[in-house]
Protein backbone atom coordinates (compact mmCIF):
# COMPACT_ATOMS: atom_id res chain seq x y z
CA UNK A 1 0.00 0.00 0.00
CA UNK A 2 1.12 3.62 -0.56
CA UNK A 3 1.48 4.12 3.19
CA UNK A 4 1.89 1.83 6.17
CA UNK A 5 -1.59 1.01 7.48
CA UNK A 6 -0.74 2.45 10.91
CA UNK A 7 -0.14 5.77 9.16
CA UNK A 8 -3.78 5.87 8.03
CA UNK A 9 -4.94 5.13 11.53
CA UNK A 10 -2.74 7.79 13.08
CA UNK A 11 -3.88 10.33 10.47
CA UNK A 12 -7.50 9.49 11.27
CA UNK A 13 -6.97 9.90 14.99
CA UNK A 14 -5.07 13.12 14.46
CA UNK A 15 -7.80 14.43 12.16
CA UNK A 16 -10.48 13.81 14.78
CA UNK A 17 -8.50 15.32 17.66
CA UNK A 18 -9.79 18.47 19.30
CA UNK A 19 -6.64 20.36 18.40
CA UNK A 20 -6.98 19.59 14.73
CA UNK A 21 -10.70 20.33 14.63
CA UNK A 22 -10.02 23.64 16.34
CA UNK A 23 -7.29 24.60 13.87
CA UNK A 24 -9.37 23.51 10.92
CA UNK A 25 -12.19 25.79 12.03
CA UNK A 26 -9.67 28.58 12.66
CA UNK A 27 -8.38 28.16 9.10
CA UNK A 28 -11.43 27.23 7.04
CA UNK A 29 -14.45 28.02 9.19
CA UNK A 30 -15.71 24.44 8.85
CA UNK A 31 -15.26 21.08 10.52
CA UNK A 32 -12.73 18.71 8.94
CA UNK A 33 -13.97 15.54 7.28
CA UNK A 34 -12.01 12.60 8.59
CA UNK A 35 -14.02 9.65 7.33
CA UNK A 36 -11.82 9.13 4.31
CA UNK A 37 -8.81 8.29 6.51
CA UNK A 38 -10.89 5.69 8.32
CA UNK A 39 -12.03 4.16 5.05
CA UNK A 40 -8.44 4.16 3.79
CA UNK A 41 -7.26 2.40 6.94
CA UNK A 42 -9.91 -0.24 6.47
CA UNK A 43 -9.01 -0.75 2.81
CA UNK A 44 -5.31 -0.82 3.63
CA UNK A 45 -5.83 -3.60 6.18
CA UNK A 46 -8.00 -5.55 3.74
CA UNK A 47 -5.39 -5.19 1.01
CA UNK A 48 -2.53 -6.28 3.28
CA UNK A 49 -4.29 -9.14 5.01
CA UNK A 50 -6.48 -10.59 2.28
CA UNK A 51 -5.05 -9.06 -0.91
CA UNK A 52 -8.51 -7.89 -2.02
CA UNK A 53 -8.35 -6.05 -5.32
CA UNK A 54 -11.40 -3.88 -4.56
CA UNK A 55 -9.73 -2.64 -1.41
CA UNK A 56 -6.54 -1.94 -3.34
CA UNK A 57 -8.40 -0.03 -6.07
CA UNK A 58 -10.44 1.97 -3.60
CA UNK A 59 -7.36 2.96 -1.66
CA UNK A 60 -5.40 3.98 -4.74
CA UNK A 61 -8.39 5.97 -5.99
CA UNK A 62 -8.64 7.76 -2.66
CA UNK A 63 -4.95 8.69 -2.65
CA UNK A 64 -5.08 9.91 -6.23
CA UNK A 65 -8.02 12.11 -5.33
CA UNK A 66 -6.03 13.50 -2.43
CA UNK A 67 -3.20 14.40 -4.79
CA UNK A 68 -5.62 16.06 -7.19
CA UNK A 69 -7.02 18.22 -4.41
CA UNK A 70 -3.55 19.44 -3.61
CA UNK A 71 -3.09 20.68 -7.17
CA UNK A 72 -6.36 22.59 -7.15
CA UNK A 73 -4.96 26.01 -8.04
CA UNK A 74 -3.40 27.87 -10.98
CA UNK A 75 0.25 28.62 -10.26
CA UNK A 76 1.31 32.24 -10.30
CA UNK A 77 4.81 31.42 -11.50
CA UNK A 78 6.51 29.06 -13.90
CA UNK A 79 8.29 26.08 -12.36
CA UNK A 80 11.98 25.63 -13.04
CA UNK A 81 13.48 22.72 -14.93
CA UNK A 82 16.76 23.05 -13.05
CA UNK A 83 17.81 24.81 -9.81
CA UNK A 84 19.16 28.38 -9.98
CA UNK A 85 22.70 28.38 -11.32
CA UNK A 86 24.04 30.69 -8.63
CA UNK A 87 22.72 28.81 -5.60
CA UNK A 88 26.18 27.42 -4.79
CA UNK A 89 28.19 30.37 -6.06
CA UNK A 90 30.80 31.34 -3.42
CA UNK A 91 30.17 34.66 -1.69
CA UNK A 92 32.29 37.71 -2.48
CA UNK A 93 35.10 38.69 -0.15
CA UNK A 94 33.32 41.90 0.90
CA UNK A 95 30.14 40.24 2.05
CA UNK A 96 31.79 37.23 3.69
CA UNK A 97 33.47 38.44 6.90
CA UNK A 98 34.97 35.34 8.46
CA UNK A 99 37.36 32.82 6.96
Amino acid at each position, binding site marked *: *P*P*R*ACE*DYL*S*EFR*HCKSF*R*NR*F*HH*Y*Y*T*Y*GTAPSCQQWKADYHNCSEWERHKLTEAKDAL*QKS*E*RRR*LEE*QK*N*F*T*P*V*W*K*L*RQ*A*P*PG*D*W*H*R*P*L*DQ*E*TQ*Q*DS
Partner: protein
Amino acid sequence: MGQTKQDEEYGYDLFPERNARNPKQITIRDGLFTFRNKCQGMLRFAMETSPYAKLLLSAMKNSGCKVFKDRHFSCEDCDGTVSGGFDAASSQIVLCQNNIHQQAHMNRVVTHELIHAFDHCRAHVDWFNNFRHLACSEIRAANLSGDCSFSNEFSRFNFGLKEHHQQCVRGRAVRSILAVRKVSREEAQKIVDEVFDSCFNDHAPFGRIPHGNKDAKFAYREYMNRDRYYANL
Protein backbone atom coordinates in the same frame (compact mmCIF):
# COMPACT_ATOMS: atom_id res chain seq x y z
CA MET B 1 23.62 57.60 -5.12
CA GLY B 2 22.22 54.95 -7.43
CA GLN B 3 23.27 52.26 -4.96
CA THR B 4 21.35 53.82 -2.06
CA LYS B 5 18.19 54.27 -4.11
CA GLN B 6 18.27 50.65 -5.13
CA ASP B 7 18.92 49.61 -1.50
CA GLU B 8 15.78 51.39 -0.37
CA GLU B 9 13.68 50.17 -3.26
CA TYR B 10 14.39 46.53 -2.47
CA GLY B 11 14.46 46.76 1.33
CA TYR B 12 18.19 46.31 1.67
CA ASP B 13 18.34 49.30 4.05
CA LEU B 14 16.75 47.06 6.70
CA PHE B 15 19.86 44.88 6.62
CA PRO B 16 22.74 47.35 7.07
CA GLU B 17 25.40 44.66 7.42
CA ARG B 18 24.76 43.63 3.83
CA ASN B 19 26.25 46.93 2.71
CA ALA B 20 29.47 46.06 0.90
CA ARG B 21 30.84 49.58 1.33
CA ASN B 22 31.18 49.45 5.13
CA PRO B 23 32.18 45.92 6.11
CA LYS B 24 31.88 45.51 9.87
CA GLN B 25 35.14 44.88 11.71
CA ILE B 26 35.10 41.72 13.80
CA THR B 27 36.93 41.93 17.15
CA ILE B 28 38.09 39.17 19.51
CA ARG B 29 35.24 40.02 21.89
CA ASP B 30 32.78 39.21 19.12
CA GLY B 31 33.86 35.60 19.36
CA LEU B 32 32.49 35.13 22.88
CA PHE B 33 28.94 35.33 24.24
CA THR B 34 27.33 37.42 21.56
CA PHE B 35 24.03 37.65 19.75
CA ARG B 36 25.77 36.07 16.81
CA ASN B 37 26.70 32.95 18.78
CA LYS B 38 23.23 32.69 20.25
CA CYS B 39 21.75 33.10 16.78
CA GLN B 40 23.96 30.42 15.32
CA GLY B 41 23.22 28.04 18.19
CA MET B 42 19.48 28.50 17.81
CA LEU B 43 19.78 28.14 14.06
CA ARG B 44 21.55 24.81 14.37
CA PHE B 45 18.96 23.59 16.85
CA ALA B 46 16.15 24.63 14.52
CA MET B 47 17.70 22.86 11.54
CA GLU B 48 18.20 19.69 13.54
CA THR B 49 14.94 19.46 15.46
CA SER B 50 12.15 21.45 13.85
CA PRO B 51 10.06 19.18 11.60
CA TYR B 52 9.12 22.23 9.52
CA ALA B 53 12.77 23.04 8.85
CA LYS B 54 13.80 19.44 8.30
CA LEU B 55 11.10 18.94 5.70
CA LEU B 56 12.04 22.11 3.84
CA LEU B 57 15.75 21.30 3.93
CA SER B 58 15.04 17.85 2.58
CA ALA B 59 12.78 19.20 -0.16
CA MET B 60 15.37 21.76 -1.18
CA LYS B 61 18.09 19.14 -1.33
CA ASN B 62 15.87 17.11 -3.63
CA SER B 63 15.30 20.13 -5.83
CA GLY B 64 19.02 20.62 -6.27
CA CYS B 65 19.45 23.39 -3.72
CA LYS B 66 21.16 21.69 -0.84
CA VAL B 67 21.39 24.17 2.03
CA PHE B 68 24.71 24.68 3.78
CA LYS B 69 24.39 26.44 7.11
CA ASP B 70 27.51 28.54 6.66
CA ARG B 71 26.85 29.50 3.07
CA HIS B 72 23.11 30.01 2.97
CA PHE B 73 22.41 31.46 6.40
CA SER B 74 23.78 34.65 7.87
CA CYS B 75 23.22 35.99 11.39
CA GLU B 76 23.30 39.78 11.33
CA ASP B 77 22.07 42.86 13.12
CA CYS B 78 19.04 44.38 11.46
CA ASP B 79 17.07 47.59 11.63
CA GLY B 80 13.72 47.90 13.27
CA THR B 81 11.70 44.91 14.24
CA VAL B 82 12.30 42.76 11.18
CA SER B 83 13.23 39.16 12.05
CA GLY B 84 14.74 37.92 8.85
CA GLY B 85 14.86 38.03 5.09
CA PHE B 86 15.77 36.13 1.97
CA ASP B 87 18.32 37.69 -0.35
CA ALA B 88 17.85 36.15 -3.79
CA ALA B 89 20.86 37.99 -5.19
CA SER B 90 23.28 36.14 -2.90
CA SER B 91 21.07 33.10 -2.20
CA GLN B 92 21.23 33.77 1.52
CA ILE B 93 18.78 33.75 4.37
CA VAL B 94 19.39 36.59 6.78
CA LEU B 95 18.54 36.04 10.44
CA CYS B 96 18.27 39.13 12.63
CA GLN B 97 20.33 38.16 15.66
CA ASN B 98 19.28 41.31 17.53
CA ASN B 99 15.58 40.57 17.11
CA ILE B 100 15.31 36.84 17.60
CA HIS B 101 15.67 35.80 21.21
CA GLN B 102 13.63 32.64 21.59
CA GLN B 103 14.00 29.23 19.99
CA ALA B 104 10.35 29.06 18.94
CA HIS B 105 10.72 32.38 17.17
CA MET B 106 13.91 31.20 15.46
CA ASN B 107 12.14 28.03 14.30
CA ARG B 108 9.39 30.12 12.77
CA VAL B 109 11.71 32.59 11.05
CA VAL B 110 13.87 29.80 9.65
CA THR B 111 10.76 28.07 8.30
CA HIS B 112 9.40 31.29 6.84
CA GLU B 113 12.62 32.17 5.05
CA LEU B 114 13.22 28.61 3.89
CA ILE B 115 9.82 28.75 2.18
CA HIS B 116 11.05 31.76 0.20
CA ALA B 117 14.28 29.94 -0.60
CA PHE B 118 12.29 26.87 -1.64
CA ASP B 119 10.13 28.95 -3.96
CA HIS B 120 13.27 30.54 -5.40
CA CYS B 121 14.72 27.11 -5.96
CA ARG B 122 11.76 25.44 -7.66
CA ALA B 123 10.21 28.29 -9.63
CA HIS B 124 11.21 31.30 -11.68
CA VAL B 125 10.33 33.85 -9.03
CA ASP B 126 11.02 37.39 -10.13
CA TRP B 127 11.58 38.84 -6.66
CA PHE B 128 12.57 42.29 -7.81
CA ASN B 129 10.12 43.14 -10.56
CA ASN B 130 7.02 41.00 -10.19
CA PHE B 131 4.92 41.97 -7.19
CA ARG B 132 2.54 39.08 -7.75
CA HIS B 133 5.41 36.65 -7.30
CA LEU B 134 6.57 38.44 -4.17
CA ALA B 135 3.04 38.47 -2.77
CA CYS B 136 2.59 34.80 -3.56
CA SER B 137 5.70 33.75 -1.70
CA GLU B 138 4.75 35.93 1.27
CA ILE B 139 1.28 34.43 1.38
CA ARG B 140 2.75 30.93 1.33
CA ALA B 141 5.31 31.78 3.99
CA ALA B 142 2.75 33.31 6.34
CA ASN B 143 0.37 30.42 5.70
CA LEU B 144 2.73 27.50 6.15
CA SER B 145 5.30 28.63 8.71
CA GLY B 146 3.03 28.94 11.74
CA ASP B 147 3.24 32.77 11.62
CA CYS B 148 -0.54 32.87 11.74
CA SER B 149 -1.19 30.14 14.26
CA PHE B 150 -3.92 30.81 16.78
CA SER B 151 -1.44 31.13 19.65
CA ASN B 152 0.85 33.51 17.79
CA GLU B 153 -2.03 35.73 16.78
CA PHE B 154 -3.44 35.60 20.28
CA SER B 155 -0.11 36.73 21.72
CA ARG B 156 -0.20 39.69 19.32
CA PHE B 157 -3.64 40.53 20.72
CA ASN B 158 -5.25 39.72 17.37
CA PHE B 159 -8.28 37.89 18.62
CA GLY B 160 -10.26 36.08 16.00
CA LEU B 161 -11.54 32.61 15.39
CA LYS B 162 -13.53 31.64 12.34
CA GLU B 163 -11.22 31.78 9.32
CA HIS B 164 -9.01 34.21 11.16
CA HIS B 165 -5.99 32.35 9.81
CA GLN B 166 -6.74 33.62 6.31
CA GLN B 167 -7.18 37.18 7.51
CA CYS B 168 -3.85 36.95 9.29
CA VAL B 169 -2.11 35.58 6.19
CA ARG B 170 -3.46 38.41 4.03
CA GLY B 171 -2.46 41.01 6.59
CA ARG B 172 1.06 39.69 7.08
CA ALA B 173 1.63 39.34 3.35
CA VAL B 174 0.67 42.99 2.87
CA ARG B 175 2.93 44.06 5.72
CA SER B 176 5.86 42.10 4.33
CA ILE B 177 5.44 43.71 0.93
CA LEU B 178 5.19 47.19 2.43
CA ALA B 179 8.34 46.59 4.44
CA VAL B 180 10.50 45.93 1.39
CA ARG B 181 8.89 47.78 -1.49
CA LYS B 182 7.70 51.30 -2.04
CA VAL B 183 4.04 50.78 -2.84
CA SER B 184 0.86 52.07 -1.26
CA ARG B 185 -1.09 49.91 1.14
CA GLU B 186 -4.03 49.80 -1.26
CA GLU B 187 -1.83 48.56 -4.07
CA ALA B 188 -0.24 45.90 -1.87
CA GLN B 189 -3.68 44.82 -0.70
CA LYS B 190 -4.91 44.59 -4.27
CA ILE B 191 -1.99 42.42 -5.36
CA VAL B 192 -2.41 40.10 -2.38
CA ASP B 193 -6.13 39.74 -3.12
CA GLU B 194 -5.40 38.90 -6.74
CA VAL B 195 -3.07 36.00 -6.01
CA PHE B 196 -4.51 34.87 -2.68
CA ASP B 197 -6.68 31.97 -3.85
CA SER B 198 -3.91 30.43 -5.88
CA CYS B 199 -1.13 30.87 -3.36
CA PHE B 200 -3.10 30.04 -0.23
CA ASN B 201 -3.84 26.63 -1.74
CA ASP B 202 -0.26 25.90 -2.75
CA HIS B 203 1.00 23.85 0.17
CA ALA B 204 4.23 22.56 -1.35
CA PRO B 205 6.30 20.86 0.03
CA PHE B 206 4.11 20.17 3.07
CA GLY B 207 1.07 18.74 1.36
CA ARG B 208 -1.09 20.35 4.05
CA ILE B 209 -1.18 23.48 6.19
CA PRO B 210 0.83 22.45 9.25
CA HIS B 211 -0.95 23.89 12.28
CA GLY B 212 1.68 22.79 14.73
CA ASN B 213 4.60 20.47 15.26
CA LYS B 214 2.47 17.35 15.16
CA ASP B 215 1.07 18.28 11.74
CA ALA B 216 4.58 19.11 10.58
CA LYS B 217 5.83 15.73 11.80
CA PHE B 218 3.08 13.96 9.86
CA ALA B 219 3.93 16.01 6.79
CA TYR B 220 7.63 15.18 7.24
CA ARG B 221 6.80 11.47 7.56
CA GLU B 222 4.71 11.69 4.39
CA TYR B 223 7.52 13.45 2.55
CA MET B 224 10.18 10.95 3.62
CA ASN B 225 7.97 8.07 2.46
CA ARG B 226 7.08 9.60 -0.87
CA ASP B 227 9.05 7.06 -2.94
CA ARG B 228 6.98 4.20 -1.57
CA TYR B 229 3.85 6.35 -1.90
CA TYR B 230 4.25 7.11 -5.60
CA ALA B 231 5.39 3.58 -6.38
CA ASN B 232 2.13 2.18 -5.01
CA LEU B 233 -0.38 4.48 -6.61
